[in-house]
């Protein structure tokens, strides 16, 4: 109970950081009582606002769903609650999880708690699950539920110095989560915790036909003899000096502790960004078709015709990023372009997946940077017209296209911002990924808990 009250206190203290869209303190208290009665230890949790929570607003950080209250709860959230989770609030993020900065939500930006934030400039928390990452970093929650379509969990985890785990696609049910390529993901303060919460939530669900049973392989007990693949394509002009140094020193540490370092080449990775954009915009265009303002969502005053109402509803209540993706996705699906873009992207996706599968057949894990460097300031991001977002995506998208587990481990150094290193493992080797990340963390000793 104390833990929950402390978390609530933190949530109040960090209100200016825009972490939560909806605070659910009373719910958390009720859940804590229920957990105690069941002999469980209550733990504070924050869930990204794109996961449905029965009887509480689920906004996807959009004006479209500002007043939407779902009559059901996401499967993964249900499972967390059944293990003693107490929901402190619904976390802020980029509108419909489209973005890598958590700046563009309808309810205002999320600001990193690592540095003092002002009204006009702040340290970007990364995204889209910025609220979730800051919540864990600032102590509002032991664990935050996030989602990851192209890096949306790992990126903010790296920027805020916490762990971000995107498991194998399908091992956590998407029922109750808005987009179809999203993977429910976990932000926590250690790899062990990531695994613990993963186990709370994993399992096949009848309502989600794409869900699968998890974990074919057990982990490995130590770093010794571990074969670590280092893909050379991740060493590129996007990677910062800082990023390179941390990556390098983490590999050296692994080597010192008995890991075998092996250079790998993944030539198709350079196409992952283009491929990812085609596939996700198409998915977005299709999934967003339901937001027409008829059955639920923003209903405009314009009702002169059904089509006028659709147009008004969608152009008023969806932000520019979302609208652009919808338009691009529909364009790419037109009969005359479909073959050239969409069908090709699907083929490229297969190549990327095969390439990663093959590499992960030869090594145990791949170790890469999670992002190009440390978190930027909002002013820098604006100056670059958000081009930094695309640069960072480069490091994380391939794992989504291949559906493999990937976890970002934070390296926090004195007097400088955290940097994330990413560990990828073969499909369903989630346990291996978590274990190795844990070992890595122990041996490198670079991570300093806040």
């Amino acid at each position, binding site marked *: 109970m104390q833990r929950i009250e402390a978390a609530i206190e933190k949530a109040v203290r960090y209100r200016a950081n825009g972490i939560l869209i909806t605070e659910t303190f009373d719910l958390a208290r009720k859940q804590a009582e229920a957990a105690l009665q069941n002999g469980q230890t209550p733990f504070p949790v924050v869930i990204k606002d794109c996961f449905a929570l029965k009887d509480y607003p689920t906004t996807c950080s959009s004006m479209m769903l500002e007043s939407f209250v779902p009559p059901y709860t996401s499967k993964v959230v249900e499972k967390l609650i059944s293990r003693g989770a107490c929901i402190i609030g619904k976390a802020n993020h980029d509108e419909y999880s489209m973005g890598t900065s958590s700046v563009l939500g309808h309810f205002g930006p999320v600001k990193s708690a690592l540095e003092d934030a002002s009204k006009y400039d702040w340290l970007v928390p990364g995204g889209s699950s910025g609220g979730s990452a800051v919540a864990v970093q600032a102590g509002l929650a032991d664990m935050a539920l996030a989602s990851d379509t192209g890096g949306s969990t790992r990126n903010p985890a790296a920027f805020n110095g916490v762990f971000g785990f995107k498991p194998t696609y399908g091992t956590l049910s998407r029922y109750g989560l808005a987009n*179809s390529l999203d993977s429910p993901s976990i932000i926590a303060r250690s790899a062990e915790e990531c695994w613990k919460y993963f186990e709370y939530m994993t399992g096949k669900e009848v309502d989600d036909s794409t869900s699968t049973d998890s974990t074919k392989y057990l982990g490995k007990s130590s770093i010794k003899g571990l074969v670590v693949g280092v893909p050379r394509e991740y060493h590129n002009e996007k990677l910062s000096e800082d990023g390179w140094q941390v990556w390098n020193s983490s590999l050296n540490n692994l080597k010192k502790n008995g890991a075998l370092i092996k250079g790998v080449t993944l030539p198709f990775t350079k196409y992952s960004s283009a491929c990812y954009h085609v596939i996700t915009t198409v998915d977005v265009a299709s999934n967003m078709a339901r937001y027409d303002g008829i059955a639920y969502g923003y209903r405009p005053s314009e009702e002169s015709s059904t089509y006028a109402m659709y147009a008004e509803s969608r152009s008023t209540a969806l932000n520019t990023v979302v609208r652009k993706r919808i338009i691009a996705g529909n364009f790419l699906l037109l009969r005359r372009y479909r073959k050239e873009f969409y069908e090709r992207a699907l083929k490229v996706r297969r190549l990327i997946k095969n390439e990663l599968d093959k590499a992960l057949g030869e090594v145990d894990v791949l170790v890469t940077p999670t992002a190009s460097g440390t978190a930027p300031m909002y002013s820098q991001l604006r100056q670059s017209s958000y081009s930094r977002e695309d640069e960072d995506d480069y490091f994380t998208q391939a794992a989504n296209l291949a559906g493999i587990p990937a976890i970002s481990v934070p390296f926090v150094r004195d007097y400088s911002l955290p940097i994330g290193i990413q560990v990828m493992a073969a499909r369903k080797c989630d346990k291996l990924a978590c274990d190795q990340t844990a070992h890595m963390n122990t041996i490198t000793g670079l991570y300093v808990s806040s």
Partner: protein
Amino acid sequence: MLQTRILRRISAMTASTSSATPSTSEGHKDRSRYRPVIGLEVHVQLNTRTKLFSRTPAGLEAGPNRLVSPFDMALPGTMPALNKQAVMHALKMAKLLKCTVPEKSRFDRKHYFYADMPAGYQITQTDMPIARDGSFAFHVFDEHVEPYWKEVPIIQLQLEQDSGKTIHHGKKCCALVEIVTTPCLRTALEATCFVQHLRLILMHYQICLGELHRGHLRVDANVSLSYDGKPGTRIEVKNINSVRCLHTAINYEIERQFSLLSRGEKIVKETRAADPEGRTVSMREKEDDTDYRFIPEPNLPLLKIQPEWREMNDRWVETQPPPRFQKFRDEFGFNPRSALHLAEDETLSSFIERCAEHFVPLENLTANDILVWMKELKTTMQRSKDVYPPASNRFAEQFVRAIDLYKKNRITRLRMLDLLRNLSADQESRTVDQILDAEDLWKIENADEIVSDLLKSQEKISEKARQGHAKSFGRLRNLAVEGSRKRIDVDQIEASLKRLLGLKT
């Protein structure tokens, strides 16, 4: 609705995108050079307990917006879960329509905005349907056309959501299988016979409840006119809600297209709706403008058809008794026309089945005898309060026994008619044989004895008749019939009268 790709496939077969342009200046007025080309898309609403992708009950009578789950509302994050019963029904249809069932099939999203379709797309199948390349054979006939056999190739069966009725009409909104035929039908009659036979089969195997006016079966017709074998422009006719409407709408469309073409005008590719009178009216211009932007449904994995599902459904279909019209036609020997007519009527069908128990083992009785006497029975019962045909087993048995006795020449036609009246009146508890024995009503072969007695007793009339007075002859005949208590055939009485009166035969 035809999918784009199927359209292309049909186009490849018939090259139907180019319109028929008459080559000679007057040739386009020559009706004999045109040929109707008709293809059907039949939407079969499956008889399932729940909807195709949610566990909301289907087929119940509830008000609008009552039976709706979060998935049906397309709320964010909801996902489809495929109804296995629907897959089983589709596999039964595949067996009945002799289709190939690929190992895997896929669901696709077809996007368009429609106020009654909350997701902004319909989940259907296009490139990888659950079954393909089948055929369906049936008799084509009507009052004027003698039955002939027709085999229609089926392009594919696709499982899909009933898009139009997702929320409203919550009672429906269910699983559909769309049957797409090749454009091989030539007349409205062929199309209606196809639908009538298909309907009976689907109802028999409990795949569909089969009521067209309630939307259990919906038919779209694609109609074009080829000219000298060159394909014409295809018009899709929707909103057809009865077999009669299908017939008139196709004929209307054929006439409309011919009249345009014969005036040298072009057919514009479009979708038209049938109005209640079966006329077609323009709805909107079609596929050329609508791009449905298909994508594979990301929330459903490929549907892998387990071999045991197929075996189970195939076996089930094989072990069911055949549909009534088939049984009537092939086992009982009814002609195709009567077989269908009888099968479409529950009361008549069950009457036939009750009769069949008794007449099928009899070699001298044919289905036609039953038909002939059913007609007589109907006439006989017209003025009675009882329901035609009588529902009891006893009646069916005695009905057949009476026909049998008549065929064996043991009773006269008039006696037979009397028997029908007695039996159907239902106060009669005796069997036909008991009645005949008790009242001694068996047929007498020799009329001369009764006739000569009659002539002696009716000398005046006999004399008139002898001189050729027709009325008197008729009088004598009737007296003889009565005197014999209908035990002698009228023909025999007339022959005997003529002989004994010395008249020319």
